């Protein structure tokens, strides 16, 4: 297994900072804006973006975290079932501009699940998608509105996002996986 560092701690900070500016530029400020991060790392990313937006604009945006486990299309028959966590969106999404935040955009299936989950919680005026890394290989018609870094990958490779809150450091790695990794992916429905 070979690991290449794509983004280090300093670069990570700069990228998040740029993303915060892009969110504000796109929406002409922070009014009516809410950030919803997909657990686990998208959630931390959303919180960091909110802090930066508060620094830049002097306004607090509401942040929620979304657990999409119940909406996954590969939930059944998995040998390793994900631990169900709680969705914590303590405000009304209706008529808000929601920026959905995730660390890596890959097949698009997570985003599909997240959209369904959001629709069950409220009716936002608009949903935008922000991701730290877009690695390609979409299986659904999903496109991010704001992207931290585009990384063309092969299916044998994997993107690993580390964040201080859970991993002790901020970094993005490109991981070269062994041959059998590809089979695992293809087995998923």
């Amino acid at each position, binding site marked *: 297994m070979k690991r290449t560092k794509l983004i280090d701690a300093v670069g990570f900070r700069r990228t998040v900072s740029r993303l915060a500016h892009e969110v504000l530029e796109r929406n002409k400020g922070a009014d009516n804006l809410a950030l919803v991060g997909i657990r686990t790392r998208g959630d931390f990313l959303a919180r960091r973006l909110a802090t930066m937006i508060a620094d830049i604009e002097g306004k607090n945006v509401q942040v929620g975290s979304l*657990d999409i*486990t*119940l*909406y996954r299309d590969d*939930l*059944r*028959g*998995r040998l*390793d*079932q*994900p*631990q*169900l*966590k*709680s*969705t*914590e969106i303590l405000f009304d999404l209706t008529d808000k501009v929601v920026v959905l935040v995730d660390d890596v955009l890959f097949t698009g299936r997570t985003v599909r699940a997240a959209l*369904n989950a959001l629709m*069950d*919680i*409220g009716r936002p005026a608009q949903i935008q998608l922000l991701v730290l890394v877009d690695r390609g290989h979409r299986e659904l018609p999903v496109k991010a509105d704001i992207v931290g870094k585009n990384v063309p990958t092969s299916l044998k490779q994997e993107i690993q996002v580390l964040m201080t809150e859970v991993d002790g450091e901020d970094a993005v790695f490109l991981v070269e996986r062994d041959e059998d990794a590809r089979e695992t992916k293809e087995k998923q429905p």
Partner: protein
Amino acid sequence: MKLHGRHLLGLDGMPREDIQLILDTAVSFKEVLERPIKKVPPLQGKTIANMFFESSTRTRLSFELAERRLSADVVSFTTAGSSVAKGETLKDTARNIEAMKIDMVVIRHSAPGAAHFLSRVVNANVINAGDGSHEHPTQALLDMFTLREKHGSLDGLRVCIVGDITHSRVARSNIFGLKTMGAEVSVCGPATLIPREIENLGVKVYHRLEDVVQDVDALNVLRIQLERQQRGLFPSLREYHRYFGVTKEKLARATKPITIMHPGPINRDVEISADLADGEHSVILQQVTNGVAVRMAVLYLLGISN
């Protein structure tokens, strides 16, 4: 994260990590129940049969709600009006249900071991919703969930189960589950309603409520099954109330507030006084709310495993 078994038949012998997983998962479902749209899709396309061979209101309702909120298709039947009344055996009923491609079965039956039996003859996941005086695992799980929510942890928590222990599946499941989770469990009731050698399960036995209240955090008050009164196990309801009915007076010696639980339905002013049942330390209605979340957790964890 996965349960060890394919069925939920009882808490006797269920590993600690399984109970922990169910309780943790239920926390997430409790959040779902507070949303405007209280429905999530994980069991879409699964069919669940609720087979209630014994009367039940809240347990059946609670299971049905839990199933529908997980988007499962639900069929229910009670003994009255089913083929059981025509003399069909449990095995044949089960086989027919199997022939209709049912994925999960929730069963309540007056015979201890009915759920175990069913789990051996059908391929579906079986959930025991009460089998005679044997076990009622989801009730005990929701009791534990409620206690954990109120007290933070079950480890070292002192819980006393009051009433007819001999005939109570709720008591048995609670004892197994609470012991596994590290709680200190005691039972209290008239000698005629406490099984001999129950100490072997690791519980303390009391025959006076006044002796219990000083060293207990919660009382789980069982329903006095009025139908059993004919057997002469206690002289009269009035006498039962006088000695074992939970009242403010009997709790007077407690040094701190005691959480009051009851699996329902309540006989007011028999096993518990009305003011305590509706009092500030009563979690009886929280138990009902939590019941749906806990049953969703059980159905979800078993339903996605195959």
